[in-house]
């Protein structure tokens, strides 16, 4: 198996970091598998960072997490049927995404319903793993991601799926934002809120499927939720928050890939740890930032009294 051989190569001989940055970068992209990993990782980070903003805004973090777990059954089922697990993943996440979207955002007990379906599909996944007699690597890759085993074809799939998700997100951007902030009001203004909820979950399902390749179904939070959750703590401008989320997701992915290249430990560990560490630092630094903002707000209000200024 190709993935297996790459895996052993890396774990046995980790390259050393030199003090020459150009040499290091050249070494990083010396192997095709690293180039593919960076390509796929970059696309996934952009998609995950952007859609994550809406996941946070709509308080749909659990739904996003559930999508990936439900996808696990699809992926393992595909492995049993000797189909590319990505297609099984896609079918299950999009199917369940549409179902969750149809449940609506306001429904009380929605999370309970999702949880019940989630538990059952994970059980299905366990069955499929036991039916599969080959290597356990496949299941491991689905659960924790195996970005270093990504092929050129996988990169093309990721690129196409990435373009589709971003284009769809741009198309529904304004009404989705409106419905996420105030569903009742958006509905009264003529926004088709239920169709939008279904559409968003379907887009999220495709994004989750892409992200699974990088961090696996268990660690999806690190790329979809964490960057956006950090971003909304910095800014309350929607577009700036999305851009910040994308930058953070890119930083986590690139830093994770680089760290993993120079060490014997898995990429997913580094991506999730860097994301978590950033979140902790931001939360700890927040009280300080708030004090600074209050100071500048006082200064601004003094300025306001001296001469009326407005930013249109």
């Amino acid at each position, binding site marked *: 198996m190709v993935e297996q051989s790459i895996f052993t190569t890396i774990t046995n001989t980790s390259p050393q970091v030199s003090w020459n940055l150009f040499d290091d970068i050249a070494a990083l992209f010396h192997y095709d598998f690293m180039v593919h990993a960076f390509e796929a990782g970059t696309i996934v980070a952009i998609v995950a960072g952007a859609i994550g903003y809406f996941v946070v805004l709509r308080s749909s973090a659990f739904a996003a997490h559930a999508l990936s777990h439900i996808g696990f059954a699809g992926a393992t089922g595909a492995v049993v049927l000797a189909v590319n697990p990505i297609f099984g993943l896609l079918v299950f996440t999009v199917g369940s995404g549409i179902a969750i979207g149809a449940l609506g955002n306001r429904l009380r007990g929605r999370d309970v319903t999702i949880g019940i379906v989630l538990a059952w599909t994970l059980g299905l996944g366990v069955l499929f793993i036991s039916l599969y007699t080959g290597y356990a690597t496949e299941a491991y890759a689905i659960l924790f991601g195996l970005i270093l085993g990504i092929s050129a074809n996988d990169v093309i799939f990721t690129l196409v799926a990435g373009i589709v998700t971003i284009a769809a997100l741009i198309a529904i951007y304004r009404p989705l934002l409106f419905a996420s902030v105030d569903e009742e*009001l958006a509905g009264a203004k003529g*926004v088709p809120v239920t169709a939008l909820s279904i559409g968003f979950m379907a887009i999220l399902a495709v994004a989750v499927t892409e992200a699974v390749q990088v961090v696996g179904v268990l660690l999806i939070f690190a790329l979809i939720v964490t960057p956006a959750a950090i971003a909304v703590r910095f800014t309350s401008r929607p577009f700036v928050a999305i851009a910040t989320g994308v930058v953070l997701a890119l930083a986590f992915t690139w830093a994770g890939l680089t760290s993993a290249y120079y060490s014997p430990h898995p990429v997913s560990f580094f991506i999730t740890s860097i994301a978590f560490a950033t979140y902790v630092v931001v939360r700890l630094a927040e009280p300080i930032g708030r004090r600074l903002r209050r100071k500048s707000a006082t200064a601004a209000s003094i300025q306001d009294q001296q001469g009326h200024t407005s930013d249109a």
Partner: protein
Amino acid sequence: MQPPAIVARNLAAGYGAHRVWAHADFSIAAGSFTAILGPNGGGKSTLIRTILGLLPPADGQLQVLGEKPRRGNPLIGYIPQRSTFDPELSIRGRDFVSLGVDGHRWGMRLLGAATAAAADASIRSVNAESYADRPIGQLSGGEQQRLLLAQALVGNPRLLLMDEPLSQLDVRNQSLIVQLIGDLKRARELTVLLIAHDVNPLLPHIDHVLYVAQGNVAMGTPEEIITSESLTRIYSTPVEVLKDSRGRVFVVGLEEEVSHPHG
């Protein structure tokens, strides 16, 4: 004389086989201020939703601004019933008001100057400039209500529908918001319909009372409805209407309704 803003003829509303109320006949004059009163669960919000076109009439006819109710009518401004925005909601008041301008359009906002100008004018009209750039979830109830009002006013609507805009406010903010709504109504010749629990802050401003209770909708003047007998009958709970030495009217007994809702 302008044609009436809203005309209902034998109107009924309900969900499926369940009728919330029926046989509603009323006409609301353009440029008037109407308070919608009635006990919880009586169908006040259902009436608003029917006028908005979110719920088709179960029976009878309804004309809103001379046409059939339709969802997304730009001539209607709306403030839905809500507690407050989630404190974690990280979006500026200005962005929220802008969504009122063009949030129903597909795609992203490419040239946002016109939208920004419309939002800005609306924010100014409710005197919310000083906090419009702060996250809406972190504002006070009164500030949030002003921004909701700014959102409802974008695009110069003819009709303003508000579902309990005063319920989360303290007494001072209640009268400030009602005063602001009254001023805007006069300046823009708006027709205003407002659902309220506590009628006291509204009494100086309202022209009509529409009460929704026991499966009926009926209209009256404040003088007819705001009496101990009729309010006691509408709410099925003892209500007293008192007059102070300066002739101001106070309704006592409906506060309970707010803190201990039944039905």
